[in-house]
Every structure is written in C-alpha cells, then in structure tokens.
C-alpha cells in the first residue's frame, strides 16, 4: 500500500501529464486535470497519514527497474538538453551538459559498483515537501486551467498549446515528488535535472524571443549547478562510498566531507537562484504566471533548500556552515534591497523569493534546532503565501494588463476579491502572527549568537516591509469615497478555477498560521529529532516556546486583529462614517491632478549597477565558501 502510494506520487502525475499531452479534447483534458489534481492531493495526504516515517521503501514492483530507468533517463535527459542547446545555439548549456555527460559516463561505467538500495526515503521533511508540492501544486494546476485559457485568448495563441503546458506541469509535479522521496543520490540527481528541464520548457513556453533567451539563461545556470551536483556525488562516492541519503544521514563525518557539502551547496544555490545566479529567476518571470508560482516560488526553487536541509546535519559546527549563514543572510538583505527598487509586481515577488530563500539558507547555516525549525517553517509558509501572491498577480495582470504595482492603485474598487486576497497574502508574508514572521522570529532568536547574521536579518526583514506594505497601500488606496459600500456593490467576475485556487490558498495561508503549533509538533519536531539535535522549542496551542530564551504566542495577536477588524466593521456600519476627500491644500476640486508615487530610490541606486555589486560580493562569498570547505 505504502509503496503504491509512494510510487504513484511520482508516476501518477507523470502519466497523467503524458496522457494530457495527447488529449486534444479540451473538456476531457480539463476534467482529467481537475480529477488528477484532486487525486494528487489525496495521495499526498494519504502518504502523510499512512507512511511510517522515517522509513526506507522500495519501488512498487521491481527494485532494479527504477535504477535502470534513472540511468537511462539521465542519458536521455543530457542528450535532450544537448539537442536543445544546439537548437537554440547556446554554447554555455552545451559546455555544462557535456561536462556532466563526461562525469556521468565516468561515474556510471567506471566507478559505480552494483548495489541494492531502497529507492524511497521518507521522513517528515519529505512529507512536508510532498504536501507542499502536491497540494499547492495541484491548486496551481487548477488555477492554470482558467489562467491559460484567458492567457491564450489574450495572446491569440492558436492552436492551443495547453496540452504541452499541462503535460509539463504535471510531469514536473511528479518529478518534484521523486526528488524529495528518492533515497539514492543518483535518483535525486536525475529528478534535479529533470526539474531544470521542466523549468526551461515552461519559461520558454510562450515562444517569444525574450522567453527563449531567459529560458536559456535558466537552463545554463541550472546545468552549472548540475555539474557541481554530479561532481559532489562522485566525490562522495569515491571517498566514502556513500550513494544514498539514509547512509548520508547516518554518516558521522569525515575530513573532506565539507567539499561534498560545498559542491552540493553550490548546486542548491543555483537552484534556489541565489546571487550571483538570481538573474535566471528574474528572467523566469516571462513564463505564464502559474509557472512562476509553482516552479519559481513554491516548489522547484525549494529543492535547493531541501538539499541544504539534508546536508545540515553533516555540516553542523563547521566553518562552512557559518559562511553559509552569512551568505544566506547577505542574500536575504541584498535581494530585499533590490526588490525595493522594483515596481513590477512579479519582479518584486521574484526578488523577495530569492530573498526569502536566502533567509532559509541563513537559518540552515546557523544550524541549531530552532534555526532548522525556522527554515522548515519558512519553507512551508513561504510556499503557500508566495504561490498565492503569484497567482494574484497573474489574475490582476490579465485584468488590468499590467504588473506594475503603481497601476494597481485603487484596484480594490475594480477587483475587490482579488485585491483583498492579495492583501491578505501580503500580510501573511509581512506581519506577525502569520507563519512567515513567526519563523522569522525564530530565526532571529536563533541568529542572535551570530551578530552579523542577526543584523542582516533584521535589516532585510525591515526592508521587505517596505515593498510589501506599499503594495497593499496601492491596492487599497482610492480617491473615491465610501470604499466598503462600493466594494459590496462591485461584482468581480473570475473563472471558478481561479477563484477556487485563490481562496483555498488564502485560507491555507491564514489557517496554517493559526495551527502553527500543531504543524510544528507533527512535522517539524520529529524531523529535528531525526537530525539528532537537541530540541529546545516546544509548541502548544498557539504558543511557541524557544527553550527559556523566549516565546511567541499566536492567539492573542489573532484575537487582537480579529477584534480590530470586528470593531472597525461595526463602527463603519453603525455610524455611516462621513467620507471626505483627502487633504489637498484646499484644492479639492482637482484632486486627480495630484498623486504621490512610491519611493523606488531609482536615483539612489540603479538596479543594474547595484546588482553587479551584489553579484560580485556574493560570488566572492561563494568562493570563500568553496575555499572554506577545503580547509
């Protein structure tokens, strides 16, 4: 049963994807996708309930088959990518792929000895990731139904390219599940590469020149990461003979293990689009928005974090870990500052994704039980909220034909539902008591021994408040008087699939924060125990206690916000608040002439130049990291 579940979590989405590629009948395809999304989610929940974890499981059926498939798949993938690089004539891809090919051939045919390892490894982390991928992923897939239809209508795409799109998306979900469940490092590697490929295909889905270019950039950067990945595996295997996660987790450390960590860390950084590789994620914003939501914020980029989390116990206490912490904190701050100068909503989200990934990396680097817990919580909450926000931006963009937050002024009157959901999404990212801030709090407390890291974290989170809150400000700012009345009158028409996706994600984002204690006890605590760390955090009914250092209780804040909302609704209702115009120096008659814009500090730093500095420093940090690993 368990085996079936695990296997089907990979195979089922992939198969449905493959089938949907050939399903030319729109209605049928739709029904299939809805059904299968539902099933995927169900499977993940079943897994979460029925799996005995931590545990090792074999693939359903044969145990050699998956190994074989993966081996073949590896080569297939590499040749396919080579072909792509030839087709779009991008030599960088070819170079990195060829490097991988050489190493792969060397490894597969000359080094690797036959051995028998269970295919699946599942623990709480995998379950957590699986839940995110399957639930958020299927919600996004459903959203895409509505979105892609409008998208193609707006862009006059015909014949429809939706089958291709959904095929890739569903296969991607399968691949992600494979990535997080696979025990063998080779399997991990295969799925890793596969997601890179999916990302490329989806980025260039629209087929414009820009899309192709940005896709290529994403691919070569990820291929570079792949090179490091395979190199790391070879290194590990040749030195310690380890090729699977379970062994790795049991491994008690060796002299050169840090080199392996550094190599895999590098791969993780490319995947998580940490500077100097953040440009691929920014470029990836040309993809249809569900792609950005699914791959580039909630799941694929999280693969990097997943990998680092797996490496965390190995590097515990090393200098490397400290450098990673600094690097992550630095990324957190610097990309938050970059996001500050943006007014394009997707770019803001992209930069802040990179930034939050940096925060997770920093937490992992700090490597204490609370910081690991913080990282895992961030992983979860960020996936939901960010995914939601991307979907919101997509919806808004299709309506107002712009992604610029300056153009979203007063959107609340035009698209009340979307705007409110967007605001809630932003709030869940920005303020306590929502999970993101709770995890930031945990991370801050964990970071307090590393003063520099703490400083950058504090600054970074303050900076992110700027770009988030001005976004909300723009959404709800109006010149019209009597907002609530108008909202009530305004009927916003959204396709059901889109509405469902937005509402369910928003609900999740809020509800999860409410039950943060439960989530912590169920998923995060055991995982930290598994990592053999002394657990100092306790959670009970909305209270998170950080081992005598401090504590955070969520309920009072919720009650407070609830009360504020209730009272304000009551006051608005009872005393139909008198509405006036805004203060305009006595020039009320031509209010529309005047409007302040948000500060983007364009004059202070120009994005390109600033980015160069940031990239430079982060490259230096990565070099330091590599160097640190050798010492």
């Amino acid at each position, binding site marked *: 049963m368990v085996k079936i579940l695990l296997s089907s979590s990979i195979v089922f989405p992939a198969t449905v994807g493959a089938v949907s590629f050939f399903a030319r009948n729109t209605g049928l395809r739709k029904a299939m996708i809805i059904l299968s999304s539902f099933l995927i989610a169900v499977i993940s929940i079943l897994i979460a309930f029925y799996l005995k974890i931590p545990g090792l499981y074999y693939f359903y059926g044969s145990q050699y088959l998956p190994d074989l498939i993966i081996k073949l798949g590896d080569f297939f993938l590499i040749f396919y990518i080579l072909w792509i690089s030839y087709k779009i004539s991008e030599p960088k891809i070819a170079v990195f792929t060829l490097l991988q090919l050489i190493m792969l051939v060397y490894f597969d045919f000359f080094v690797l000895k036959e051995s028998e390892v269970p295919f699946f490894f599942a623990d709480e982390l995998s379950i957590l990731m699986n839940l995110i991928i399957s639930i958020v992923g299927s919600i996004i897939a459903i959203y895409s139904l509505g979105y892609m239809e409008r998208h193609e209508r707006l862009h006059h795409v015909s014949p429809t390219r939706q089958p291709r799109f959904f095929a890739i998306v569903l296969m991607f979900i399968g691949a992600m599940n494979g990535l997080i469940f696979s025990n063998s490092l080779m399997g991990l590697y295969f799925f890793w590469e596969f997601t890179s490929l999916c990302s490329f295909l989806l980025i260039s889905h629209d087929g414009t020149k820009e899309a192709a270019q940005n896709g290529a950039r994403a691919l070569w950067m990820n291929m570079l990461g792949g090179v490091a990945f395979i190199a790391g595996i070879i290194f590990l295997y040749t030195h310690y003979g380890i090729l699977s996660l379970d062994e790795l987790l049991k491994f008690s450390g060796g002299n050169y293990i840090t080199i392996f960590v550094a190599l895999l860390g590098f791969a993780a950084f490319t995947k998580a689009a940490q500077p100097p590789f953040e440009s691929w994620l920014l470029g990836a914003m040309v993809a249809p928005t569900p792609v950005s939501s699914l791959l580039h914020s909630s799941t694929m980029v999280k693969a990097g974090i997943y990998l680092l989390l797996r490496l965390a116990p190995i590097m515990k206490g090393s200098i490397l870990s400290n450098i990673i912490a600094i690097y992550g904190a630095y990324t957190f701050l610097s990309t938050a500052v970059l996001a500050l100068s943006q*007014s394009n909503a997707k770019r803001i989200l992209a930069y802040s994704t990179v930034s939050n990934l940096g925060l997770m990396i920093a937490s992992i680097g700090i490597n204490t039980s609370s910081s690991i817990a913080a990282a895992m919580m961030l992983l979860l909450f960020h996936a939901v909220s960010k995914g939601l926000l991307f979907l919101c931006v997509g919806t808004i963009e299709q309506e107002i034909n*712009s992604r*610029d937050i*300056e*153009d979203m002024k007063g959107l609340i009157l035009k698209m009340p539902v979307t705007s409110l959901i967007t605001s809630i999404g932003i709030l869940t990212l920005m303020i306590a008591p929502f999970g993101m801030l709770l995890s930031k709090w945990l991370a801050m407390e964990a970071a307090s021994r590393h003063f520099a890291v703490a400083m950058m974290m504090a600054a970074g989170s303050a900076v992110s408040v700027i770009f988030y809150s001005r976004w909300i400000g723009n959404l709800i700012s109006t010149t019209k008087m009597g907002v609530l009345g108008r909202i009530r009158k305004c009927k916003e028409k959204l396709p059901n699939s889109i509405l469902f996706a937005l509402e369910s994600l928003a609900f999740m984002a809020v509800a999860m924060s409410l039950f943060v204690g439960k989530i912590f006890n169920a998923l995060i605590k055991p995982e930290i125990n598994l990592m053999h760390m002394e657990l100092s955090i306790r959670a009970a009914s909305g209270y998170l206690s950080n081992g005598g250092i401090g504590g955070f209780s969520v309920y009072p804040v919720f009650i407070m916000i609830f009360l504020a909302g209730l009272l304000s609704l009551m006051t608005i209702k009872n005393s139909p608040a008198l509405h006036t115009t805004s203060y*305009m*120096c*006595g*020039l009320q008659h031509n209010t529309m*002439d*005047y*409007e*302040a*814009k*948000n*500060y*983007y*500090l*364009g*004059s*202070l730093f120009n994005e390109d130049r600033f980015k160069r500095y940031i990239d430079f420093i982060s490259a230096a940090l990565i070099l330091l990291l590599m160097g640190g690993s050798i010492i």
Partner: protein
Amino acid sequence: MSKTGIIPFGPQHPVLPEPIHLKLVVEDERVMEVYPAIGFVHRGLEMLAAKKDINQMIYVVERICGICSMMHGMTYCQALEELMGLDIPPRAKFLRVIWAELHRIHSHLLWLGLFADSFGFENLFMQSWKIRERIMDMLERTAGNRVIISVNIIGGVRRDMDDSTLRWILQEISGVEKDLSGLKDMVLNNYTVKKRTVGKGVLSKDEALRLGAVGPVARGSGIARDLRATGYAAYGELDFEPVVEKEGDCFSRSVVRIREIYQSIDLIRQAVSKMPSGEISVKVKGNPPVGEVISVVEQSRGEVFYYIKTSGTQYLERLRVRTPTFANIPALLKMLPGCELADVPVLILTIDPCISCTER
C-alpha cells in the same frame, strides 16, 4: 510607467505663511519640475489709486503688506515728495530711518522664525519671535500700532519721538542685541541647521544678476547692492557697508540677514545719536503736478520699485509697485528643480517671500 508623482504645495499649507501654489513633480524625494500658480492674494489695489486720493493712498499702500508696511508708505511718500519738489525736515528723515530699520529687524526676525519652522526647528522659531516682540513693543509705543504703523505722510511723518522714548529705544535695542547672541549661535553654529542650509539652493553671482535678484538674495550671492547707499531719507548721513556673503546658498543668505539685523541695530543707534531737532513734517498744498516718477527703496527683502504717474488732480493716474519678492521669484524657480522635497520649504523661505507684496 513613470515613477514621478505630483505633489501640491499650497495654497493652504502650514509651512507657507501665505498662499501660493506649487505643483511639484517629484521622483522619490527629488523635485524634478515646478509649476507655480499664484494669485490667491491678489486684490488689485493698484486700481484703488483711481478711487482714493493721494493722501488716502498712503494707507492703502501700507496695506500692501503688513510686514514691510512702513517702507511701502515711505517709498510712496518719497515718490510724491520728489514729484512735488518737497524738502522734508531732517528730523523726519531720521525718524523714518529709525522706523524703517525697526521694520527691517522685525521682518528679518520674522523671517528667521519662519525659516526655522521650515526645517522643523521650533525652538528657533519661538526664540526669534520672542525677540521680535520687543521690536513690536517699540513700534507700538512710538507709532501706536504693532504692525501697520502708519507714520508716513506726504511731507514728513506723523509722530515724533521725544527724548525719553529715544533713550528707551536705545536701551531696548541693546536688550535685543543681547538676546540675539544666543539666537545667532543657534543658527550659525548649529550642526543640524548648517546641514540643512549649507550648499542648498546655490545661486551664483551671475545667475543672481541675470535673474534680477535683489536684496539679501543678491547680497548672499556676492552682489554688493544695497539701495540705502544711494542715500535716500537720512541714510546719506549714516555710516554703513552693505552686507555681502559669497557662497550664494541658503546659509549665506541667512548670514546676510542676521548680519543685517546687527547692521540695523547699529544704524538705529547712529540715527538716534545724530537725531536733529526741529519739525517733523512740512505742510503740503495743492495737488501734485503732472509727471512720472520712480522711487526705489531698500526694503527688508530688497529693492521696492514705485512708479507713479500723476494727472494733476488729487488722484493718481497710475500707481505701480514692483516688490522685491516679485523680483526674487525667478531665482526661486531656478533653485527648486533638483532639490529634495524636504528642502522645498527651506528654499521657498530662503528668498523670504512675501506674496501679499508680490500680488498686491
């Protein structure tokens, strides 16, 4: 998408003592362009010259502005005296100097307060207005009113000061001088004030000339031009040097004004000590002859220009007033683009604008 916002500034605005309107095109904190709109104080009193006779017009021109009212009256009277060929008694000239210099001190202190307010230095505002009240007392005691003192008439002045009053003035003015030292310290030696004013709104000498800047604005840019040197009223018999500063930024304009306060104190002392005795006015008979006359006087804000055309009756044919602020506004418009939003009030106040003068 442009990230430039448009911010209104005025007419009803707490830092603007008077209504003008500026449309500021800003990007972040930087002002890119400025579109002014004026006319909120325009009353059209030049036209009253046709309705009120020359004596009544004194009280009208004094109400062009409550800050520099005495000097408006003086300029007007000087113009008509010139036209009618009147030679006013020397005592009247000296009295005019004293009142004019008192006005200059009060006007500069008033400016200093508002200027301080423009960069959020409330205490400085309070201190300078506190000192200013002593000047107001002097005006009230000598002329009977705090603000619009109405002492000029064609042919001299209306009120005399007796010796005890003059002594009292000397004593009070010394008190003012003492109080000023703390104030001066607060402007000239305060790091934060310097930071807000030094290097802001720089106006080079050339620009100042071309834009026709007058008064402290011109003198702050190194133009040694002070009409009092032409010796109208009793200034010819008093000793003074125009105050000049070179840098041409807000700070040097402030320094000019503060030094001018001291200069005025000195001038008052001189005038009191040299005060001749005798009549304070001459009798004026008949209507002024037909003619055109120009009269200029160094107001607290710079040169005020009166053009008067008479028609041979007791009414003027045309009265035209060009006030110093009118001449300084082009300089302001040159300074504003490129400054920070927070500096807008500072720059506006640095020319010491007086809109009621400007728009009449």
